[in-house]
């Protein structure tokens, strides 16, 4: 095959121009994986910076069980209860997302719609919890550059930066989920004959859940 026809092939986009998809994966999905890999490095950098700064201030670091103990309807608070609920919500919304992908494989538009709606509800519920937690901590005197106790102020800085960056990912995830849901409702993917877009946004959504698993461990447990 001459170079010219090769270029033509590329332009028409028949399976990456090579006739066969590398890695048996669709182009967009592979690019999503690459994006997530780069995002994983970003979060790793943030979390290891947190680790190093915490480690170097270990004699002057607040006890997470005390800082994060408030929860609605519990007057004196209980450690880990509220963040436990948040973790459960996010894992749950990850499950509904896989169920949407699974329904997409069967081409069931109705079920994809149902599970996408549940995923969006889960995402919004998580963000609401985070808004509650941030507001609460703000009123207690925690904010960027501020800490109500004698402890190292970097605790506040890192907490708000890292959970904020994660929350920003959740927010964009919810927005993208809504866009995908609109397309599902419009029948765009039914006409296309596959629900690959749901899988792609699903990868992103699980990644957000994955990051939360690490944030949960390093901020609230360790």
């Amino acid at each position: 095959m001459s170079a010219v026809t090769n270029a033509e092939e590329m332009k028409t986009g028949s399976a990456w121009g090579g006739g066969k998809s590398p890695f048996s994966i669709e182009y967009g999905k592979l690019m999503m994986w690459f994006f997530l890999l780069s995002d994983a490095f970003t979060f790793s950098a943030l979390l290891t910076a947190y680790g190093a700064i915490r480690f170097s201030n270990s004699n002057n670091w607040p006890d997470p069980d005390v800082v994060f103990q408030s929860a609605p309807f519990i007057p004196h608070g209980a450690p880990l209860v509220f963040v436990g609920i948040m973790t459960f919500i996010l894992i749950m919304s990850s499950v509904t997302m896989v169920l949407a992908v699974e329904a997409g494989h069967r081409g069931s538009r109705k079920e994809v719609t149902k599970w996408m709606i549940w995923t969006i509800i889960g995402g919004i519920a998580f963000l609401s919890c985070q808004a509650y937690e941030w507001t609460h901590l703000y009123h207690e005197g925690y904010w960027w550059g501020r800490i109500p106790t004698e402890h190292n102020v970097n605790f506040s800085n890192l907490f708000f930066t890292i959970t904020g960056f994660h929350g920003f990912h959740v927010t964009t995830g919810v927005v993208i989920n809504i866009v995908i849901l609109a397309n599902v409702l419009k029948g765009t993917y039914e006409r296309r004959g596959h629900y690959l877009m749901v899988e792609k946004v699903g990868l992103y959504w699980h990644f957000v859940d994955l990051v939360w698993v690490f944030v949960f461990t390093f901020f609230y447990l360790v």
Partner: protein
Amino acid sequence: MTAAEHTTTHDADHQSMTTGDIWKVFFILLGLTIIEFIIALAIPESFMPHSIKNILYIVLTLAKAFYIVAYFMHLKFEKLFLIYLIVVPLILVLGIIGSLLYEGDYWLPIR
């Protein structure tokens, strides 16, 4: 997308998860999180020192990460080369963890 490509993507999906598998992974994730809570809340520090708890947390976190990436993100069912393509670069993360913890150890007596 051509019909041929459509078939290839669907071939990989054939070893996909059923609804039963999905819920099974969910209960594993839930179980691991509950174990973390038990370690954090029910086991006194006198019985298990904080450093050992931390190691257990990290092990359980990595186990959860494995289940999310392998099953929910479907990586376990992709081509082997793709798995390496995503997992091998993450070795670099060990480098940054190691070097920054070393740094933190150096900063500690300075402060």
